[in-house]
Protein backbone atom coordinates (compact mmCIF):
# COMPACT_ATOMS: atom_id res chain seq x y z
CA UNK A 1 0.00 0.00 0.00
CA UNK A 2 2.73 2.46 1.02
CA UNK A 3 4.71 1.65 -2.14
CA UNK A 4 1.72 2.44 -4.34
CA UNK A 5 1.07 5.64 -2.43
CA UNK A 6 4.71 6.59 -2.91
CA UNK A 7 4.55 5.97 -6.66
CA UNK A 8 1.30 7.93 -6.85
CA UNK A 9 2.82 10.88 -5.01
CA UNK A 10 5.83 10.78 -7.32
CA UNK A 11 3.75 10.72 -10.52
CA UNK A 12 1.48 13.51 -9.28
CA UNK A 13 4.43 15.66 -8.22
CA UNK A 14 6.15 15.11 -11.57
CA UNK A 15 3.02 16.15 -13.52
CA UNK A 16 2.60 19.15 -11.21
CA UNK A 17 6.20 20.24 -11.77
CA UNK A 18 5.75 20.00 -15.55
CA UNK A 19 2.56 22.09 -15.40
CA UNK A 20 4.12 24.66 -13.06
CA UNK A 21 6.90 25.23 -15.56
CA UNK A 22 4.41 26.05 -18.34
CA UNK A 23 3.88 29.66 -19.33
CA UNK A 24 0.11 29.34 -19.49
CA UNK A 25 -1.39 30.63 -16.20
CA UNK A 26 -4.30 28.19 -16.09
CA UNK A 27 -1.91 25.27 -16.52
CA UNK A 28 0.09 26.62 -13.62
CA UNK A 29 -3.07 26.77 -11.53
CA UNK A 30 -3.73 23.11 -12.26
CA UNK A 31 -0.10 22.45 -11.39
CA UNK A 32 -0.57 24.03 -7.97
CA UNK A 33 -3.66 21.93 -7.32
CA UNK A 34 -1.93 18.69 -8.34
CA UNK A 35 1.10 19.54 -6.23
CA UNK A 36 -1.15 20.15 -3.23
CA UNK A 37 -2.80 16.75 -3.70
CA UNK A 38 0.61 15.07 -3.97
CA UNK A 39 1.83 16.62 -0.72
CA UNK A 40 -1.41 15.79 1.10
CA UNK A 41 -1.08 12.17 0.02
CA UNK A 42 2.53 12.17 1.19
CA UNK A 43 1.51 13.34 4.66
CA UNK A 44 -1.33 10.83 4.62
CA UNK A 45 1.16 8.04 3.86
CA UNK A 46 2.78 8.79 7.25
CA UNK A 47 -0.23 7.20 8.97
CA UNK A 48 1.07 3.77 8.09
CA UNK A 49 -1.80 3.19 5.70
CA UNK A 50 -0.90 -0.50 5.22
CA UNK A 51 -2.39 -1.39 8.62
CA UNK A 52 -5.66 0.34 7.75
CA UNK A 53 -7.23 -0.43 11.12
CA UNK A 54 -8.96 2.33 13.09
CA UNK A 55 -7.24 3.21 16.38
CA UNK A 56 -10.21 2.26 18.54
CA UNK A 57 -9.72 1.16 22.13
CA UNK A 58 -11.56 -2.06 22.89
CA UNK A 59 -13.62 -2.20 26.14
CA UNK A 60 -11.44 -2.89 29.16
CA UNK A 61 -8.22 -1.98 27.31
CA UNK A 62 -5.94 1.03 27.75
CA UNK A 63 -4.47 1.27 24.26
CA UNK A 64 -5.76 0.35 20.80
CA UNK A 65 -4.80 -3.07 19.45
CA UNK A 66 -1.62 -2.89 17.36
CA UNK A 67 -1.10 -2.52 14.44
CA UNK A 68 -3.33 0.49 13.85
CA UNK A 69 -3.20 3.62 11.71
CA UNK A 70 -1.93 6.76 13.38
CA UNK A 71 -4.75 9.34 13.52
CA UNK A 72 -2.55 12.43 13.92
CA UNK A 73 -1.33 12.72 10.30
CA UNK A 74 -4.96 12.36 9.22
CA UNK A 75 -5.82 15.36 11.37
CA UNK A 76 -2.83 17.22 9.88
CA UNK A 77 -3.95 16.36 6.35
CA UNK A 78 -7.44 17.57 7.13
CA UNK A 79 -6.07 20.95 8.22
CA UNK A 80 -3.73 21.08 5.25
CA UNK A 81 -6.57 20.28 2.83
CA UNK A 82 -8.67 23.12 4.18
CA UNK A 83 -5.81 25.62 4.04
CA UNK A 84 -4.70 24.36 0.65
CA UNK A 85 -8.23 24.54 -0.76
CA UNK A 86 -8.60 28.17 0.29
CA UNK A 87 -5.19 28.96 -1.16
CA UNK A 88 -5.98 27.27 -4.45
CA UNK A 89 -9.33 29.05 -4.68
CA UNK A 90 -7.60 32.39 -4.14
CA UNK A 91 -4.92 31.53 -6.68
CA UNK A 92 -7.56 30.57 -9.25
CA UNK A 93 -9.49 33.81 -8.78
CA UNK A 94 -6.30 35.84 -9.05
CA UNK A 95 -5.13 34.01 -12.16
CA UNK A 96 -8.55 34.33 -13.79
CA UNK A 97 -8.67 38.06 -12.98
CA UNK A 98 -5.22 38.54 -14.45
CA UNK A 99 -6.85 37.15 -17.57
CA UNK A 100 -5.33 35.76 -20.70
CA UNK A 101 -2.18 37.82 -20.44
CA UNK A 102 -0.26 37.29 -23.64
CA UNK A 103 3.46 37.83 -23.66
CA UNK A 104 3.43 41.26 -25.25
CA UNK A 105 0.90 42.56 -22.75
CA UNK A 106 2.87 41.16 -19.85
CA UNK A 107 6.08 42.77 -21.02
CA UNK A 108 4.26 46.06 -21.45
CA UNK A 109 3.09 45.71 -17.86
CA UNK A 110 6.66 45.25 -16.71
CA UNK A 111 7.85 48.30 -18.58
CA UNK A 112 5.48 50.59 -16.71
Amino acid at each position, binding site marked *: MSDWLGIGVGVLAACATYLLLCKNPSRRAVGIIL*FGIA*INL*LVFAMTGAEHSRAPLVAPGQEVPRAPFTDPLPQALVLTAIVIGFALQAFALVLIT*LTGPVDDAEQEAGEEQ
Partner: protein
Amino acid sequence: MSVLVISPLLVALLAGTVALLFNQRAQKSIFFGGAFIHFVVCVALFLWIFRDGVQAYHLGGWAAPLGIAFAADSFSAVLVLLTGLLGLAVAPQAIQSRSKEPSNAATPSLFFFLLAGVDAAFLTTDLFHLYVAFELLLFSSFVLLVGKAGSKERVASVRYLLPSVLSSMLLLAAVGLTYGITGTLFMPEVGIRISELGPSTAISAVAGLFALAFSLKAALFPVFAWLPASYLAANSAMAALFSGLLTKVGVYALVRVFTLIFPEEMSWLGPLMLFVAAATMIVGVLGALAQWEMQRLLTFHVVSQVGYLIVGFALGTATALASLVFYIFHNSVAKACLLLATGVVRVRYGTDRLRDLGGIVKSDPWLAGLFLVAALALAGIPPLSGFWAKLLVLQASLESEAWIILAVAASVGILTLTSMAKIWTTAFWGEESGLKRESSLASRFIELAPVALLALITILLGCFAAPAIDISLRAASELLDPTAYIDALRRSIP
Protein backbone atom coordinates in the same frame (compact mmCIF):
# COMPACT_ATOMS: atom_id res chain seq x y z
CA MET B 1 1.93 35.44 33.96
CA SER B 2 3.33 32.98 31.46
CA VAL B 3 0.47 33.83 29.09
CA LEU B 4 2.51 36.97 28.34
CA VAL B 5 4.58 34.76 26.04
CA ILE B 6 1.77 34.65 23.50
CA SER B 7 0.32 38.09 24.28
CA PRO B 8 1.60 39.75 21.04
CA LEU B 9 -0.17 37.02 19.10
CA LEU B 10 -3.38 37.46 21.12
CA VAL B 11 -3.36 41.25 20.80
CA ALA B 12 -2.85 41.04 17.03
CA LEU B 13 -5.63 38.48 16.57
CA LEU B 14 -7.99 40.48 18.77
CA ALA B 15 -7.24 43.78 17.00
CA GLY B 16 -7.73 42.11 13.63
CA THR B 17 -11.11 40.72 14.66
CA VAL B 18 -12.28 43.96 16.25
CA ALA B 19 -11.27 45.93 13.14
CA LEU B 20 -13.63 43.78 11.07
CA LEU B 21 -16.60 44.86 13.17
CA PHE B 22 -16.33 48.60 12.66
CA ASN B 23 -16.78 51.07 9.84
CA GLN B 24 -14.02 52.89 7.95
CA ARG B 25 -13.83 55.82 10.34
CA ALA B 26 -13.41 53.79 13.52
CA GLN B 27 -11.00 51.47 11.75
CA LYS B 28 -8.40 54.22 11.61
CA SER B 29 -8.17 54.51 15.38
CA ILE B 30 -8.29 50.73 15.77
CA PHE B 31 -5.48 50.47 13.22
CA PHE B 32 -3.18 52.79 15.09
CA GLY B 33 -4.36 51.87 18.60
CA GLY B 34 -3.97 48.16 17.90
CA ALA B 35 -0.50 48.65 16.46
CA PHE B 36 0.46 50.68 19.53
CA ILE B 37 -0.84 48.14 22.06
CA HIS B 38 0.85 45.38 20.07
CA PHE B 39 4.10 47.33 20.26
CA VAL B 40 3.77 47.84 24.02
CA VAL B 41 3.12 44.14 24.58
CA CYS B 42 6.10 43.21 22.43
CA VAL B 43 8.35 45.53 24.43
CA ALA B 44 7.01 44.02 27.67
CA LEU B 45 7.75 40.51 26.42
CA PHE B 46 11.24 41.54 25.35
CA LEU B 47 12.02 43.15 28.71
CA TRP B 48 10.70 40.09 30.55
CA ILE B 49 12.86 37.69 28.53
CA PHE B 50 15.80 40.07 28.92
CA ARG B 51 15.44 39.97 32.71
CA ASP B 52 14.33 36.40 33.41
CA GLY B 53 15.65 34.36 30.48
CA VAL B 54 13.72 31.87 28.34
CA GLN B 55 9.99 31.56 29.04
CA ALA B 56 7.44 29.09 27.77
CA TYR B 57 3.67 28.65 27.70
CA HIS B 58 1.63 25.52 27.05
CA LEU B 59 -1.56 26.48 25.25
CA GLY B 60 -4.76 25.53 27.04
CA GLY B 61 -2.89 23.76 29.83
CA TRP B 62 -2.00 20.74 27.66
CA ALA B 63 1.61 19.66 28.06
CA ALA B 64 3.68 19.97 24.92
CA PRO B 65 3.67 16.79 22.86
CA LEU B 66 -0.13 16.67 23.14
CA GLY B 67 -0.82 20.39 23.07
CA ILE B 68 1.02 23.22 21.37
CA ALA B 69 3.73 24.98 23.36
CA PHE B 70 5.14 28.45 22.78
CA ALA B 71 8.58 29.51 23.92
CA ALA B 72 10.44 32.80 23.76
CA ASP B 73 14.22 32.89 24.03
CA SER B 74 16.34 35.97 23.36
CA PHE B 75 16.31 35.42 19.57
CA SER B 76 12.51 35.16 19.47
CA ALA B 77 12.17 38.11 21.84
CA VAL B 78 14.37 40.34 19.65
CA LEU B 79 12.35 39.42 16.57
CA VAL B 80 9.01 39.93 18.31
CA LEU B 81 10.25 43.35 19.44
CA LEU B 82 11.12 44.06 15.80
CA THR B 83 7.62 42.99 14.71
CA GLY B 84 6.01 45.34 17.21
CA LEU B 85 8.26 48.21 16.19
CA LEU B 86 7.72 47.80 12.45
CA GLY B 87 3.97 47.34 12.91
CA LEU B 88 3.82 50.63 14.79
CA ALA B 89 6.08 52.46 12.33
CA VAL B 90 4.23 51.28 9.24
CA ALA B 91 0.70 51.95 10.56
CA PRO B 92 0.48 55.75 9.97
CA GLN B 93 1.51 55.54 6.33
CA ALA B 94 -0.71 52.53 5.75
CA ILE B 95 -3.66 54.47 7.19
CA GLN B 96 -2.80 57.50 5.07
CA SER B 97 -2.52 55.57 1.82
CA ARG B 98 -5.82 53.88 2.63
CA SER B 99 -7.68 57.15 3.04
CA LYS B 100 -6.73 57.95 -0.58
CA GLU B 101 -7.91 54.63 -2.01
CA PRO B 102 -10.42 53.10 0.39
CA SER B 103 -11.05 50.14 -1.90
CA ASN B 104 -10.02 47.41 0.46
CA ALA B 105 -12.10 47.50 3.63
CA ALA B 106 -10.38 44.47 5.14
CA THR B 107 -6.90 46.01 5.19
CA PRO B 108 -6.59 46.76 8.95
CA SER B 109 -7.65 43.29 10.00
CA LEU B 110 -5.36 41.69 7.42
CA PHE B 111 -2.52 43.84 8.69
CA PHE B 112 -3.08 42.49 12.19
CA PHE B 113 -3.48 38.91 11.01
CA LEU B 114 -0.15 39.30 9.21
CA LEU B 115 1.44 40.44 12.49
CA ALA B 116 -0.24 37.53 14.29
CA GLY B 117 1.20 35.08 11.78
CA VAL B 118 4.67 36.56 12.16
CA ASP B 119 4.45 36.51 15.98
CA ALA B 120 3.21 32.92 15.95
CA ALA B 121 6.08 31.84 13.68
CA PHE B 122 8.60 33.46 16.03
CA LEU B 123 7.14 31.89 19.19
CA THR B 124 5.85 28.44 18.34
CA THR B 125 7.69 25.22 19.17
CA ASP B 126 5.51 22.96 17.05
CA LEU B 127 6.47 22.23 13.44
CA PHE B 128 2.92 21.95 12.13
CA HIS B 129 1.94 25.11 13.92
CA LEU B 130 4.90 26.80 12.22
CA TYR B 131 3.36 25.78 8.89
CA VAL B 132 -0.02 27.18 9.96
CA ALA B 133 1.64 30.44 11.04
CA PHE B 134 3.28 30.70 7.61
CA GLU B 135 -0.07 30.20 5.93
CA LEU B 136 -1.68 32.86 8.11
CA LEU B 137 0.91 35.46 7.19
CA LEU B 138 0.90 34.40 3.54
CA PHE B 139 -2.86 34.76 3.16
CA SER B 140 -2.80 38.21 4.70
CA SER B 141 0.17 39.28 2.61
CA PHE B 142 -1.48 38.13 -0.65
CA VAL B 143 -4.44 40.42 -0.15
CA LEU B 144 -2.34 43.28 1.24
CA LEU B 145 -0.12 43.03 -1.83
CA VAL B 146 -2.98 42.92 -4.33
CA GLY B 147 -4.58 45.91 -2.54
CA LYS B 148 -5.20 48.26 -5.44
CA ALA B 149 -5.86 45.41 -7.90
CA GLY B 150 -4.78 47.06 -11.11
CA SER B 151 -3.51 44.70 -13.79
CA LYS B 152 0.12 45.45 -12.90
CA GLU B 153 -0.51 44.57 -9.26
CA ARG B 154 -2.23 41.35 -10.25
CA VAL B 155 0.65 40.21 -12.43
CA ALA B 156 3.00 40.98 -9.54
CA SER B 157 0.87 39.12 -7.05
CA VAL B 158 0.70 36.03 -9.26
CA ARG B 159 4.49 36.12 -9.21
CA TYR B 160 4.40 36.34 -5.44
CA LEU B 161 1.73 33.70 -5.07
CA LEU B 162 3.32 30.84 -6.98
CA PRO B 163 6.66 30.64 -5.11
CA SER B 164 4.93 31.25 -1.77
CA VAL B 165 2.43 28.45 -2.31
CA LEU B 166 5.18 26.18 -3.53
CA SER B 167 7.36 26.84 -0.47
CA SER B 168 4.41 26.22 1.87
CA MET B 169 3.78 22.90 0.20
CA LEU B 170 7.44 21.91 0.47
CA LEU B 171 7.32 22.87 4.13
CA LEU B 172 4.23 20.75 4.66
CA ALA B 173 5.95 17.79 2.96
CA ALA B 174 9.00 18.26 5.20
CA VAL B 175 6.81 18.47 8.32
CA GLY B 176 4.91 15.32 7.32
CA LEU B 177 8.10 13.38 6.64
CA THR B 178 9.57 14.56 9.96
CA TYR B 179 6.53 13.15 11.70
CA GLY B 180 6.94 9.91 9.77
CA ILE B 181 10.57 9.60 10.92
CA THR B 182 10.29 10.75 14.54
CA GLY B 183 6.62 10.36 15.49
CA THR B 184 6.38 13.84 16.99
CA LEU B 185 6.16 17.47 15.88
CA PHE B 186 7.32 19.11 19.11
CA MET B 187 10.60 20.66 17.99
CA PRO B 188 12.86 19.92 21.00
CA GLU B 189 11.65 16.31 21.04
CA VAL B 190 12.11 15.97 17.28
CA GLY B 191 15.70 17.14 17.80
CA ILE B 192 16.32 14.53 20.49
CA ARG B 193 14.85 11.70 18.40
CA ILE B 194 16.84 12.73 15.33
CA SER B 195 20.10 12.69 17.27
CA GLU B 196 19.19 9.26 18.72
CA LEU B 197 18.47 7.87 15.26
CA GLY B 198 21.84 9.02 13.94
CA PRO B 199 22.59 10.27 10.44
CA SER B 200 20.66 8.75 7.55
CA THR B 201 19.73 9.64 3.98
CA ALA B 202 16.10 10.16 4.93
CA ILE B 203 17.00 12.71 7.59
CA SER B 204 19.32 14.56 5.24
CA ALA B 205 16.60 14.65 2.59
CA VAL B 206 14.08 16.09 5.03
CA ALA B 207 16.64 18.66 6.19
CA GLY B 208 17.19 19.61 2.55
CA LEU B 209 13.43 20.05 2.04
CA PHE B 210 13.24 22.35 5.07
CA ALA B 211 16.23 24.33 3.79
CA LEU B 212 14.66 24.70 0.32
CA ALA B 213 11.26 25.73 1.69
CA PHE B 214 12.73 28.38 4.00
CA SER B 215 15.18 29.61 1.33
CA LEU B 216 12.21 30.30 -0.95
CA LYS B 217 10.59 32.31 1.84
CA ALA B 218 13.79 34.19 2.61
CA ALA B 219 14.40 34.88 -1.13
CA LEU B 220 17.89 33.37 -1.32
CA PHE B 221 19.86 32.79 -4.50
CA PRO B 222 18.74 31.14 -6.84
CA VAL B 223 15.10 31.44 -5.76
CA PHE B 224 14.91 35.18 -5.13
CA ALA B 225 13.45 36.56 -8.37
CA TRP B 226 9.89 36.72 -7.04
CA LEU B 227 10.76 39.28 -4.35
CA PRO B 228 11.76 42.33 -6.41
CA ALA B 229 9.12 41.40 -9.01
CA SER B 230 6.32 41.51 -6.46
CA TYR B 231 7.33 44.05 -3.80
CA LEU B 232 7.61 46.86 -6.31
CA ALA B 233 3.86 46.71 -6.88
CA ALA B 234 3.00 47.03 -3.19
CA ASN B 235 2.62 50.47 -1.69
CA SER B 236 5.70 51.58 0.20
CA ALA B 237 4.27 51.01 3.67
CA MET B 238 3.48 47.38 2.86
CA ALA B 239 6.83 46.94 1.10
CA ALA B 240 8.51 48.20 4.29
CA LEU B 241 6.53 45.76 6.41
CA PHE B 242 7.08 42.82 4.05
CA SER B 243 10.79 43.42 3.61
CA GLY B 244 11.25 43.95 7.33
CA LEU B 245 9.36 40.86 8.43
CA LEU B 246 8.51 38.26 5.81
CA THR B 247 11.99 37.35 4.57
CA LYS B 248 13.17 37.46 8.18
CA VAL B 249 10.56 34.89 9.16
CA GLY B 250 12.20 32.57 6.62
CA VAL B 251 15.64 33.24 8.07
CA TYR B 252 14.33 32.76 11.61
CA ALA B 253 12.76 29.41 10.76
CA LEU B 254 15.95 28.30 9.03
CA VAL B 255 18.03 29.13 12.11
CA ARG B 256 15.55 27.66 14.58
CA VAL B 257 15.07 24.38 12.74
CA PHE B 258 18.74 23.84 12.01
CA THR B 259 20.03 24.70 15.49
CA LEU B 260 17.34 22.80 17.35
CA ILE B 261 16.55 19.83 15.10
CA PHE B 262 19.28 19.22 12.54
CA PRO B 263 22.58 20.55 13.98
CA GLU B 264 24.47 17.61 12.42
CA GLU B 265 23.20 18.41 8.93
CA MET B 266 25.05 21.73 8.99
CA SER B 267 28.19 19.81 8.02
CA TRP B 268 26.99 19.69 4.40
CA LEU B 269 24.48 22.52 4.47
CA GLY B 270 26.93 25.03 5.97
CA PRO B 271 29.35 25.22 2.99
CA LEU B 272 26.42 25.16 0.55
CA MET B 273 24.72 28.00 2.39
CA LEU B 274 27.98 29.96 2.43
CA PHE B 275 28.01 29.85 -1.37
CA VAL B 276 24.30 30.74 -1.47
CA ALA B 277 24.96 33.69 0.86
CA ALA B 278 27.76 35.04 -1.33
CA ALA B 279 25.69 34.66 -4.50
CA THR B 280 22.65 36.30 -2.87
CA MET B 281 24.70 39.29 -1.72
CA ILE B 282 26.33 39.83 -5.12
CA VAL B 283 23.27 39.28 -7.33
CA GLY B 284 21.08 41.45 -5.09
CA VAL B 285 23.41 44.40 -5.03
CA LEU B 286 24.16 44.23 -8.77
CA GLY B 287 20.42 44.10 -9.44
CA ALA B 288 19.97 47.14 -7.23
CA LEU B 289 22.68 49.12 -9.03
CA ALA B 290 20.87 48.65 -12.35
CA GLN B 291 17.54 50.17 -11.18
CA TRP B 292 16.26 53.68 -11.75
CA GLU B 293 13.32 53.73 -9.34
CA MET B 294 13.75 54.12 -5.59
CA GLN B 295 11.45 51.32 -4.44
CA ARG B 296 12.68 48.89 -7.08
CA LEU B 297 16.30 49.59 -6.13
CA LEU B 298 15.57 49.14 -2.44
CA THR B 299 13.72 45.85 -2.93
CA PHE B 300 16.77 44.43 -4.69
CA HIS B 301 18.73 45.48 -1.63
CA VAL B 302 16.39 43.40 0.51
CA VAL B 303 17.70 40.35 -1.36
CA SER B 304 21.32 41.43 -1.01
CA GLN B 305 21.01 42.04 2.74
CA VAL B 306 19.46 38.63 3.40
CA GLY B 307 22.78 37.26 2.09
CA TYR B 308 24.57 38.83 5.06
CA LEU B 309 22.17 37.11 7.43
CA ILE B 310 22.83 33.77 5.79
CA VAL B 311 26.59 34.21 6.27
CA GLY B 312 25.91 34.17 10.01
CA PHE B 313 23.70 31.10 9.67
CA ALA B 314 26.14 29.20 7.44
CA LEU B 315 29.19 29.76 9.64
CA GLY B 316 27.18 28.75 12.69
CA THR B 317 29.67 29.88 15.36
CA ALA B 318 28.64 31.97 18.36
CA THR B 319 29.95 35.20 16.81
CA ALA B 320 28.32 34.35 13.49
CA LEU B 321 24.88 33.75 15.01
CA ALA B 322 25.25 36.90 17.12
CA SER B 323 26.00 38.83 13.93
CA LEU B 324 22.83 37.39 12.42
CA VAL B 325 20.69 38.54 15.37
CA PHE B 326 22.17 42.04 15.36
CA TYR B 327 22.01 42.26 11.56
CA ILE B 328 18.35 41.25 11.36
CA PHE B 329 17.33 44.01 13.74
CA HIS B 330 19.54 46.67 12.17
CA ASN B 331 18.64 45.77 8.61
CA SER B 332 14.88 45.58 9.10
CA VAL B 333 14.84 48.95 10.82
CA ALA B 334 17.09 50.69 8.28
CA LYS B 335 15.34 49.13 5.27
CA ALA B 336 11.87 49.94 6.61
CA CYS B 337 13.04 53.50 7.22
CA LEU B 338 14.27 53.84 3.61
CA LEU B 339 11.10 52.34 2.15
CA LEU B 340 8.88 54.56 4.29
CA ALA B 341 10.93 57.57 3.18
CA THR B 342 10.36 56.38 -0.40
CA GLY B 343 6.64 56.30 0.39
CA VAL B 344 6.82 59.92 1.55
CA VAL B 345 8.65 60.86 -1.67
CA ARG B 346 5.94 59.10 -3.68
CA VAL B 347 3.19 60.94 -1.83
CA ARG B 348 4.84 64.36 -2.09
CA TYR B 349 6.27 64.17 -5.60
CA GLY B 350 3.94 61.64 -7.20
CA THR B 351 6.77 59.42 -8.46
CA ASP B 352 9.88 57.63 -7.29
CA ARG B 353 11.69 57.60 -10.63
CA LEU B 354 15.21 58.86 -10.06
CA ARG B 355 15.33 60.64 -13.43
CA ASP B 356 12.25 62.72 -12.63
CA LEU B 357 13.25 63.63 -9.11
CA GLY B 358 15.87 66.12 -7.93
CA GLY B 359 16.74 68.67 -5.31
CA ILE B 360 14.83 67.08 -2.42
CA VAL B 361 17.54 68.41 -0.11
CA LYS B 362 16.29 71.92 -0.83
CA SER B 363 12.56 71.23 -0.95
CA ASP B 364 12.38 68.73 1.93
CA PRO B 365 15.49 69.02 4.11
CA TRP B 366 14.08 66.92 6.97
CA LEU B 367 13.12 64.04 4.71
CA ALA B 368 16.52 64.19 3.02
CA GLY B 369 18.33 64.13 6.35
CA LEU B 370 16.40 61.11 7.61
CA PHE B 371 16.92 59.28 4.32
CA LEU B 372 20.64 59.98 4.52
CA VAL B 373 20.87 58.53 8.05
CA ALA B 374 19.15 55.30 7.03
CA ALA B 375 21.10 55.02 3.76
CA LEU B 376 24.42 55.44 5.54
CA ALA B 377 23.31 52.94 8.18
CA LEU B 378 22.49 50.42 5.47
CA ALA B 379 25.85 51.00 3.81
CA GLY B 380 27.63 50.47 7.15
CA ILE B 381 29.14 53.87 7.95
CA PRO B 382 30.16 54.38 11.61
CA PRO B 383 28.75 55.27 14.10
CA LEU B 384 25.43 53.99 12.74
CA SER B 385 24.05 50.51 13.44
CA GLY B 386 25.08 49.10 10.07
CA PHE B 387 28.76 49.54 10.90
CA TRP B 388 28.54 47.23 13.91
CA ALA B 389 26.38 44.76 12.03
CA LYS B 390 28.86 44.51 9.16
CA LEU B 391 31.79 44.45 11.60
CA LEU B 392 30.27 41.44 13.36
CA VAL B 393 29.77 39.62 10.05
CA LEU B 394 33.36 40.36 9.03
CA GLN B 395 34.65 39.29 12.44
CA ALA B 396 32.69 36.04 12.26
CA SER B 397 34.10 35.23 8.83
CA LEU B 398 37.61 36.14 10.03
CA GLU B 399 37.29 33.77 13.00
CA SER B 400 36.10 30.97 10.73
CA GLU B 401 38.82 31.84 8.19
CA ALA B 402 36.24 32.17 5.41
CA TRP B 403 38.35 34.52 3.29
CA ILE B 404 36.19 34.54 0.18
CA ILE B 405 33.10 35.48 2.17
CA LEU B 406 35.11 38.18 3.90
CA ALA B 407 36.08 39.68 0.55
CA VAL B 408 32.55 39.39 -0.86
CA ALA B 409 30.94 40.95 2.23
CA ALA B 410 33.38 43.85 2.22
CA SER B 411 33.03 44.59 -1.50
CA VAL B 412 29.23 44.26 -1.45
CA GLY B 413 29.31 46.88 1.32
CA ILE B 414 31.07 49.27 -1.07
CA LEU B 415 28.57 48.53 -3.84
CA THR B 416 25.73 49.17 -1.38
CA LEU B 417 27.23 52.57 -0.66
CA THR B 418 27.49 53.21 -4.41
CA SER B 419 23.83 52.44 -5.00
CA MET B 420 22.79 54.63 -2.06
CA ALA B 421 24.95 57.39 -3.53
CA LYS B 422 23.09 56.91 -6.81
CA ILE B 423 19.75 57.67 -5.14
CA TRP B 424 21.26 60.52 -3.19
CA THR B 425 22.96 62.29 -6.07
CA THR B 426 20.06 62.00 -8.54
CA ALA B 427 16.98 62.43 -6.34
CA PHE B 428 18.22 64.50 -3.43
CA TRP B 429 20.89 66.71 -4.97
CA GLY B 430 20.72 68.64 -8.21
CA GLU B 431 18.01 70.84 -9.64
CA GLU B 432 14.64 70.93 -7.95
CA SER B 433 12.11 68.90 -9.91
CA GLY B 434 9.20 71.25 -9.24
CA LEU B 435 6.90 68.27 -8.73
CA LYS B 436 6.32 68.94 -5.05
CA ARG B 437 2.73 68.96 -3.88
CA GLU B 438 1.87 71.20 -0.97
CA SER B 439 0.44 69.46 2.06
CA SER B 440 -0.69 70.48 5.53
CA LEU B 441 1.72 70.60 8.44
CA ALA B 442 -0.18 67.85 10.27
CA SER B 443 0.02 65.37 7.39
CA ARG B 444 3.69 66.21 6.89
CA PHE B 445 4.30 65.42 10.56
CA ILE B 446 2.40 62.12 10.36
CA GLU B 447 4.41 61.15 7.29
CA LEU B 448 7.78 61.91 8.81
CA ALA B 449 7.29 60.76 12.42
CA PRO B 450 7.69 57.01 11.72
CA VAL B 451 10.69 57.64 9.45
CA ALA B 452 12.25 59.75 12.20
CA LEU B 453 11.53 57.06 14.81
CA LEU B 454 13.27 54.38 12.77
CA ALA B 455 16.21 56.66 11.91
CA LEU B 456 16.58 57.48 15.59
CA ILE B 457 16.69 53.77 16.42
CA THR B 458 19.50 53.12 13.94
CA ILE B 459 21.46 56.00 15.50
CA LEU B 460 20.83 54.76 19.04
CA LEU B 461 21.64 51.19 18.06
CA GLY B 462 24.94 52.47 16.66
CA CYS B 463 25.83 54.67 19.65
CA PHE B 464 24.86 52.08 22.26
CA ALA B 465 25.98 49.01 20.36
CA ALA B 466 27.53 47.23 23.35
CA PRO B 467 24.29 46.22 25.13
CA ALA B 468 22.72 45.23 21.81
CA ILE B 469 25.71 43.05 20.95
CA ASP B 470 25.50 41.50 24.44
CA ILE B 471 21.90 40.53 23.80
CA SER B 472 22.89 39.13 20.38
CA LEU B 473 25.66 37.06 21.94
CA ARG B 474 23.25 35.77 24.55
CA ALA B 475 20.75 34.84 21.84
CA ALA B 476 23.53 33.04 19.95
CA SER B 477 24.62 31.04 22.98
CA GLU B 478 20.99 30.07 23.65
CA LEU B 479 20.68 28.90 20.05
CA LEU B 480 23.87 26.84 20.18
CA ASP B 481 22.98 25.25 23.50
CA PRO B 482 19.20 24.78 23.60
CA THR B 483 19.18 23.35 27.15
CA ALA B 484 17.67 26.54 28.58
CA TYR B 485 14.98 26.48 25.87
CA ILE B 486 14.08 22.86 26.61
CA ASP B 487 14.24 23.40 30.38
CA ALA B 488 11.89 26.35 30.21
CA LEU B 489 9.43 24.21 28.27
CA ARG B 490 9.65 21.44 30.89
CA ARG B 491 9.40 23.84 33.81
CA SER B 492 6.27 25.48 32.50
CA ILE B 493 4.25 22.27 32.07
CA PRO B 494 1.07 22.99 33.99
